[in-house]
């Protein structure tokens, strides 16, 4: 199962190993971990659209497979209440060579940020606050349209 949406934390070492285990042709594994930054928040709650979330992530992974020569892809996104320093998301990609692994990993993160139905609400000293979408995420995703 290459896509998971879950409340539980994940094991980065295990997930990274699984991307190349038993695969003699996997020479490169690129991965990304996104974390809750805690500069001025107490906690963060991640809401999502069950059903559509998994479909959107699977579609992004399928697109990555058509664009690059990839061996395995793994996407994990947590939902529910998270604390500063907690892991939010894992994207890992294995390939024969590093160029494809790096590009696909970044592509999946950029598309996930703008196309997968997750919403963050921060719990701050001043109360709850829905996180605004960032213009820079739109421009990061649009790079891949060329």
């Amino acid at each position, binding site marked *: 199962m290459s896509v998971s949406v879950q409340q539980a934390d994940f094991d980065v070492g295990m997930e990274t190993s699984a991307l190349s285990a038993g695969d003699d042709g996997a020479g490169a594994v690129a991965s990304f971990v996104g974390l809750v930054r805690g500069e001025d928040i107490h906690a963060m709650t991640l809401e999502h*659209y069950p059903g*559509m979330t998994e479909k959107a992530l699977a579609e992004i992974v399928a697109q990555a497979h058509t664009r690059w020569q990839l061996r395995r892809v793994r996407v994990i*996104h947590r939902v529910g209440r998270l604390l500063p320093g907690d892991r939010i*998301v894992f994207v890992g990609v294995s390939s024969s060579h590093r160029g494809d692994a790096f590009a696909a990993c970044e592509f999946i993160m950029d598309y996930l*940020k703008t*196309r997968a139905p*997750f919403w963050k609400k921060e719990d701050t000293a001043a109360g709850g606050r829905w*996180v605004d*979408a960032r213009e820079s*995420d739109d421009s990061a995703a649009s790079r891949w349209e060329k």
Partner: protein
Amino acid sequence: MTIKLLYFASLRERLGTPGESLELPAGVDSIAALRGHLAARGGDWQVFATSTSLRAAVNQAMAGPEAGVKAGDEVAFFPPVTGG
């Protein structure tokens, strides 16, 4: 001839409901028309007319204003996504 409506995140909080079952009125056959219909309820529902950032999905796929809406569909409205 109903559709299932879902609202997420700040929109859900603003409307005070996570969704509803709606009898599709005659002539409401697109996301744009559905937004007009919901905005006509007035009050907080006017966000469907005034917001330029609201996104929509039909049957769990992103959908623009011209996307068709028919009986049995699952239609969701939500603010721009902020995961990752």
